[in-house]
């Protein structure tokens, strides 16, 4: 009895199997208006193993909905295995972004290979001719930059200014930078980044200008007192609003434990307009009327608070930049300085650009004169990587007559 039941069951199973295939065939015929064929789903006729299309069909549920999901079979390739639209799409892929190596090109897949390193640099020569001084000054620096991707989302940048001219040993506090950028960290909104190391914090119009390589400086130094420092930066965006929060180490003066904070909100969602609001709070050099205050040869610090509004707008061929800053200094004397900055860049000929800048910084009108700077510049782009610039700066009310009127010639070569 048991044997009979098993035989009957096997018979029905065989029947079901043999008749189900034409049913599937009909389904395909009806759905795609093509002639039914066992080879649509099988490698070599009914009963042979399923081809890719057959496997996809089975996986998707082996019914009419499955046909809807996997799409029309590719018929007419003789004994070639039939494919789904998906496998065809895969075959249409001509690029593989997971294996970016082609012949001798180098890529950055991991931690170790030296091919991962990218070198760059710049040679910046500035020849200064102060009106109130007989001799002239020549500065030149070479900057070497190295970048490498240490891991999928970790980039390292190292930059060093090399001492190539005597004066350059005192070129600000920007002798070098080194920092790591972690992109898309989990603790920030998607698209964000985290930076750690020594870098230039993003503040005011400086954040969207070429200030670092241009003698037409932004008011960053006057406004804050220092430009680069060690610290961490959190950057990201929420819809149209970008944010940067930097917590820095602060100037290294004995006893200074303060950690200055830079915070910036900005947007560039309006075509050809960049808007920004910046805030600074922390101890910084007591910069006052063009000079850094000191006691017994040691620079003194003052608690500062700054608020800035900046924009950069393109009007046709004219780039206009503006910053307005105000705040308070709670040093030896309480001050409420404020100032503004205005710059225009415009083409004046093929490869030639004109630059105009005016900035004013005011502490206390009754005690000091305003600190003002007017600069006129011409920038000529010799090649994509070489620029020549001529800048005349008129520093009115500077306590350093040497710098009242200075003509600067600059040659900048990137390599």
């Amino acid at each position: 009895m048991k044997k009979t039941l098993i035989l009957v069951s096997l018979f029905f199973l065989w029947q079901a199997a043999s008749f189900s295939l034409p049913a599937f065939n009909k389904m395909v015929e009806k759905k795609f208006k093509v002639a039914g064929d066992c080879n649509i789903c099988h490698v070599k006729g009914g009963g042979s193993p399923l081809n890719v299309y057959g496997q996809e069909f089975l996986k998707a549920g082996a019914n009419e909905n499955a046909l809807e999901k996997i799409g029309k079979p590719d018929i007419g390739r003789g004994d070639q295995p039939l494919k789904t639209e998906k496998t065809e799409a895969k075959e249409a892929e001509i690029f593989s972004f997971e294996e970016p190596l082609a012949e001798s090109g180098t890529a950055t897949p991991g931690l170790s290979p030296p091919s991962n390193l990218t070198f760059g640099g710049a040679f910046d020569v500035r020849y200064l001719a102060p009106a109130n001084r007989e001799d002239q000054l020549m500065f030149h620096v070479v900057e070497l930059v190295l970048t490498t991707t240490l891991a999928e989302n970790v980039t390292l940048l190292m930059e060093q200014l090399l001492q190539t001219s005597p004066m350059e040993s005192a070129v600000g506090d920007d002798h070098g930078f080194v920092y790591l950028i972690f992109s898309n960290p989990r603790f920030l909104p998607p698209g964000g980044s985290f930076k750690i190391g020594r870098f230039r914090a993003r503040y005011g119009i400086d954040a969207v200008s070429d200030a670092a390589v241009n003698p037409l400086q932004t008011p960053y130094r006057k406004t804050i007192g220092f430009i680069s420092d060690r610290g961490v930066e959190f950057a990201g965006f929420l819809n149209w609003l970008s944010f940067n929060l930097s917590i820095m180490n602060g100037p290294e003066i004995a006893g200074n434990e303060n950690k200055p904070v830079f915070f910036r909100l900005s947007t560039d969602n309006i075509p050809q307009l960049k808007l920004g609001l910046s805030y600074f709070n922390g101890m910084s050099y007591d910069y006052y009327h063009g000079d850094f205050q000191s006691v017994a040869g040691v620079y003194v610090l003052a608690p500062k608070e700054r608020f800035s509004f900046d924009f950069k707008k393109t009007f046709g061929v004219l780039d206009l930049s503006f910053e307005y800053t105000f705040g308070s200094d709670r040093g030896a004397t309480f001050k409420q300085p404020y100032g503004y900055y205005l710059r225009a860049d415009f083409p004046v000929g093929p490869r030639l650009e004109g630059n105009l800048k005016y900035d004013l910084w005011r502490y206390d009108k009754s005690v000091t004169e305003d600190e003002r700077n007017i600069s006129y510049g011409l920038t000529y782009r010799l090649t994509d990587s070489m620029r020549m610039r001529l800048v005349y700066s008129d520093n009115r009310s500077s306590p350093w007559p040497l710098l009242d009127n200075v003509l600067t010639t600059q040659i900048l070569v990137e390599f």
Partner: protein
Amino acid sequence: MRQRFIIAMFILISLPGLLLAHDVVWPGKKLAALFPGAAKIIQKNITLSRGQILAIEKKLGVKLRREDAVPSFYIAYKMPEMTAAEHEQMMQTGEKMKIAPYATAWFVDTVTSRGKMEVGVAVDTRGKVLKVVVFEHREDPAIARDEFLNQFIGKGLEDKMRVDEDIKAIKGAEEAARALVLDVRKTLIILDEVFRRKK
């Protein structure tokens, strides 16, 4: 010494990364415009070999710029497209969903007679242009609008992109249109040289 310090303050030479071809800030917002909805984006810095540069220049018909030889590519990943049945099967087996790279993009700076133009070009694994975005420019504002830029979508290496024949330029911004065509062609040719699947 003090005078030196003050002069140094005035000079203030500092070049933190502005000169680098590889980006030193994470361009998260720009990438979001090029790859809306990407599950993950990673950066890959490439250094083209001399042979590759020559091959690219031959195909392109113009010399590559210094920074073009060390491009930073941003590779976007997405969740795999799957049927409900496949998804269900995956849930049952406990298999993890693997995201896959579907496109890459880079940022090209082009200088026209009106100034610098910053362009982002995204290309998918089929070698077709997915999106072009103009981030900064001094051209006619229409050059950055989708009505103009969408003309590039779907274009591949085999497509001709002749200005005013295949790509309709904005009146008065023909130079910018030609620059954009060059940027797109350059992107496709460099990608072809670097990422083409080995047969």
